[in-house]
């Protein structure tokens, strides 16, 4: 199932949290060779993890971490402006209706539809909180995965080449994309919405009017 947890709620799910930070170390340091810091417990954490971000975590049936991503609002400190601002055409991404997603991570043993399930959570977040876009930082390998999942970003800018290429992109909210991602992930929208409501309460369920 999908869990939506703020950093200050992770202590209630120690196994899941530990798995997430270790799998991040495995993915970003070991497999991708990114210049990230791994602590003595084998966990990859950075300063954005200290800002009480919202994590979306795919929990495998045995309670372990299957995959995850990290969400922060672009009105506060975020990587897309602080670290990769030079890739967005000189205009910082800063809007109450755009949230940033980073550290999209999959465990080595993740079940096949994990990436799609996590992507679907992005759609639920946009729908549930009236966002217009999600902004993200991703490596070249992810572009193919996003296409397979059924939701490709608009790439704003990239640096580096080949495997080392890093890009900043935007996903506009689209009900169609949400449904397509859900279908490919094999998760009924009703179930996905139920997980969302479980986290944020029964009232966070309506799509805001699109008049704004």
């Amino acid at each position, binding site marked *: 199932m999908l869990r939506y947890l703020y950093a200050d709620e992770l202590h209630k799910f120690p196994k899941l949290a530990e798995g997430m930070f270790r799998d991040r170390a495995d993915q970003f340091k070991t497999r991708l060779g990114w210049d990230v810091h791994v602590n003595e417990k084998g966990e990859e954490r950075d300063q954005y993890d200290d800002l009480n971000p919202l994590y979306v975590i795919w929990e495998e049936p045995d309670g372990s971490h299957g995959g995850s991503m990290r969400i922060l609002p672009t009105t506060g400190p975020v990587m897309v402006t602080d670290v990769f601002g030079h890739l967005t055409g000189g205009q910082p991404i800063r809007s109450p209706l755009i949230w940033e997603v980073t550290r999209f991570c999959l465990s080595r043993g993740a079940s096949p539809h994990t990436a799609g399930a996590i992507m679907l959570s992005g759609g639920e977040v946009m729908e549930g909180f009236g966002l217009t876009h999600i902004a993200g930082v991703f490596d070249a390998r992810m572009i193919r995965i996003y296409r397979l999942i059924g939701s490709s970003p608009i790439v704003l800018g990239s640096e580096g080449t080949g495997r080392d290429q890093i890009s900043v992109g935007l996903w506009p909210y689209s009900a169609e994309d949400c449904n397509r991602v859900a279908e490919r992930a094999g998760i009924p929208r009703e179930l996905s919405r139920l997980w969302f409501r479980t986290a944020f309460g029964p009232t966070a369920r309506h799509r805001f009017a699109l008049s*704004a």
Partner: protein
Amino acid sequence: MGTKFDLSRVLEDLENTSTLDELGAVAVGLRDKLKIDHIVYHWVDGGGDQYGCTTYPDAWVARYQERNYHRIDPVILGCFQRFQPVDWKALDWSGKVAKAFLKDALAHGVGNQGYSIPIRGPNGQFALFTVNHSCTDDAWQAFIGAYGRELILIAHYFNRKALEFERSRQPDSPRSLSPREIDAMTLLALGYSRAQVAHSLSISEHTLRVYIESARAKLGALNTTHAIAKALSRGLIVV
């Protein structure tokens, strides 16, 4: 409750404010336009210091401050460190203290329905924008469904103005760079080596290091590349 209202007009009114009192007047106008009971903009800083404007009755505001209610208010506790909008029904009102607080609030004219938008501003700033009313759950749901997104935008406009009025209240507001620091960072951003930058500015590499280090520290950056990225994204340098 609710009516078709012109968002751009509200944002324009907000843009034209230059004092907290004027912000308060916009809040009153907006409340009347939306035909709801109350609007609150509330900026709480780390020291528990409070700033903002509200249409709540003065008696309730005074009582809230006198009792230090911000320490137990489920709305503050439930929204602090969060960034998604919260319907008051999703908060935990079950405790004895929370129940007593709610009873007191209702007795002072606070409505039974609320919707609060946490705002995460620069440098860890935290504020809340709340709409409040007395009505049924269904009517409230419909109201939030219709105006949720506009309210988020309005909330951030209130906060932007508050930040503008109260620059000194901002935690560690980012300092601007000196002309020499700007020159050094600009040339580095253009891809010049340190030696080339020092030569262009007719200074020693040692002096250049000082400028780079002070720029890095002011920007709160981890290294030179990070500092350049931050300076660019904040519009402090242009290349």
